[in-house]
């Protein structure tokens, strides 16, 4: 371990250039979409006065949640002292920063007035969880940047554990903040639960690790770096535990809700007759995001199964955030219990939502931005060890 060598990726191959070009094109498409939405107004999106947060928010929240989770590998190394994870810590910190950048870019570009970001930086209402989040996100960038510096700079290595602890605590608070955006919304039946904060934390563990696993496998494979079974075996088990924890919290969330009579109708909507949201819940969130990964992770030990499980966790995670954000808005707000309600403003009916091309392009653009930043950073600085082979790690 003492002789662990990190090295930048070569980045002169045609494949690397093609990767950058493809991701760059997606980023440009996202920017063009944001520019069009900004000039035309949001009526060109599928968003309405009933579904005010659409696909961009689904991806932004997914990326932000995953960002805090991607830092876990570094935390396990420096906070919990697991030496095996140490060689992975730099990549973990990098992904935490790039995923957050991708998510925040989508969030900001979807604002009605993105050019007023400076207003959000200068006018604060400290009762707003969004206002707290502005500090939590910028603080996270700063903290992880310093944490990465303590990993890179030999003289600063001795501070790494303390910075790692600070970043770990910060990320727990950050994800609590993200979950509380919804948890504190008393006006909507689908939200309004303190359970959303810990649910978001376990979601972040799972989504962040899934993305980390896929990026690590791809980076090692495409740059010809050995990746031993010992590392992957640990990550496989960890991802299994996290995916199971997400399922557990989702079960507790819905069971608690099912116990309350006034929540029966909203639960019926999500679990039984909510159309696309019910389908996405059972097939996307539970089956693809939970049961399939668990079967793959604990049923087989192949690398392909691990990669497939990580991909399933990501797809199921996007479905989960979609059901929560879009489904939670689509379900009509309860204002007149015991009454059928109708109006020209779509009161009392399930709101319809079909994402348009611009918002899909913006959402995917955020993912592409996170990945292109990662690919560039790997070429500029030595984030990856030359080898993660079993023998070298055991040394």
């Amino acid at each position, binding site marked *: 371990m003492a002789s662990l060598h990190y090295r930048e990726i070569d980045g002169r191959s045609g494949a690397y250039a093609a990767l950058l070009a493809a991701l760059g094109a997606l980023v440009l498409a996202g920017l063009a979409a944001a520019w069009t939405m900004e000039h035309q107004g949001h009526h060109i999106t599928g968003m309405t006065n009933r579904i005010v947060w659409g696909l961009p928010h689904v991806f932004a929240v997914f990326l932000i949640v995953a960002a805090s989770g991607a830092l876990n590998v570094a935390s396990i190394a420096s906070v919990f002292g697991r030496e095996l994870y140490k060689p992975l810590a730099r990549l973990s910190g990098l992904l935490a920063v790039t995923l957050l950048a991708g998510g925040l870019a989508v969030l900001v570009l979807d604002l009605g007035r993105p050019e*007023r970001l400076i207003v959000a930086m200068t*006018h604060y209402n400290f*009762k707003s969880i969004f206002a707290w989040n502005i500090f939590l996100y910028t603080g996270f960038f700063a903290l992880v940047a310093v944490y990465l510096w303590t990993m890179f700079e030999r003289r600063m290595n001795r501070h790494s554990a303390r910075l790692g602890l600070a970043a770990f605590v910060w990320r727990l608070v950050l994800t609590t903040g993200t979950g509380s955006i919804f948890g504190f*919304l008393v006006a909507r039946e689908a939200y309004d639960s303190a359970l959303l904060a810990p649910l978001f934390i376990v979601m972040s563990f799972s989504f962040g690790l899934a993305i980390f696993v896929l990026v690590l496998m791809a980076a090692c494979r495409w740059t010809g770096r050995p990746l031993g079974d010992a590392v992957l075996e640990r990550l496989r088990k960890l991802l299994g535990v996290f995916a199971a924890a997400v399922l557990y919290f989702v079960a507790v969330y819905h069971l608690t809700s099912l116990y309350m009579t006034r929540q029966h109708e909203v639960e019926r909507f999500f679990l039984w007759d909510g159309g696309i949201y019910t389908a996405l819940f059972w097939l996307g969130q539970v089956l693809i995001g939970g049961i399939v990964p668990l079967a793959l992770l604990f049923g087989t030990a192949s690398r392909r199964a691990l990669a497939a499980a990580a991909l399933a966790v990501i797809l199921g995670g996007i479905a989960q955030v979609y059901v929560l954000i879009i489904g939670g808005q689509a379900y009509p707000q309860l204002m007149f219990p015991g009454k059928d309600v109708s109006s020209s403003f779509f009161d009392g009916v399930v709101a319809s939502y079909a994402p348009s091309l611009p918002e899909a392009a913006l959402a995917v653009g955020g993912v592409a931005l996170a990945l292109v930043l990662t690919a560039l950073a790997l070429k500029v600085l030595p984030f990856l060890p030359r080898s993660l082979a079993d023998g070298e790690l055991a040394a």
Partner: protein
Amino acid sequence: MNPDRRQLLRWGAAAAAGAALAPGFRLIELAQARSPQEAASRLQRWGLLIDITKCGECDACVTACGEENGWTGHGRAETDPQWIRTVHLRDRRTGYAQTLPLMCQHCEHPPCVDVCPTGASFKRADGIVLVDKHTCIGCRYCVMACPYGARSFVHEAVSGQKPDVPRGKGTVESCTLCVHRVDRGETPACVEACNRDGGGAMAFGDLNDASSTIHRRLVNEPSSQIRADLALNTGVRYQGL
């Protein structure tokens, strides 16, 4: 001193006293009115009382609000703004049908103000909940937080704006209780229209003023708040709900 002269002096003294005191009385009157420069006062709490038993199948309040505030749409129901709307209720068990106008409820503890990151959503001292169009960044968190679905996001460019009612693409807006009219000492457009062309269901006034009609009615007659369970203490109250 002859009686005529005495009489003249008496009248003169009365006129002088009147001339000296009258401006004082006028000042008291002026002091009670609010000048445009003066801030709204927390001594007042503006509100509405809506008797929905008098609310029939008309849209006088909705039409008047649209014309007064210039929010008429583009024929796109899902994205056009609606500051006030007619809501139809039907009891699931008995089938009993009712109609009521629904708009921003001007809560004492507005969730939209709590969640707004920049403070653009704010409550005036006199209880009117507004959006500052200069600091709204269009994040729509307030739309998520409003229990009444009362807020609209401006989805496209606006034209033909009213001088008193600033609006803007990419910001959020809702009923202002016709704050520009209230500050001139008038009633909101919906209330005026309801009493002129509708069923006379809507009343406007200062909930804190013990001498006002709305206060007296709230003291002596039953009324309710929508989603009273949230304890937001709405400024808009309903009767017959």
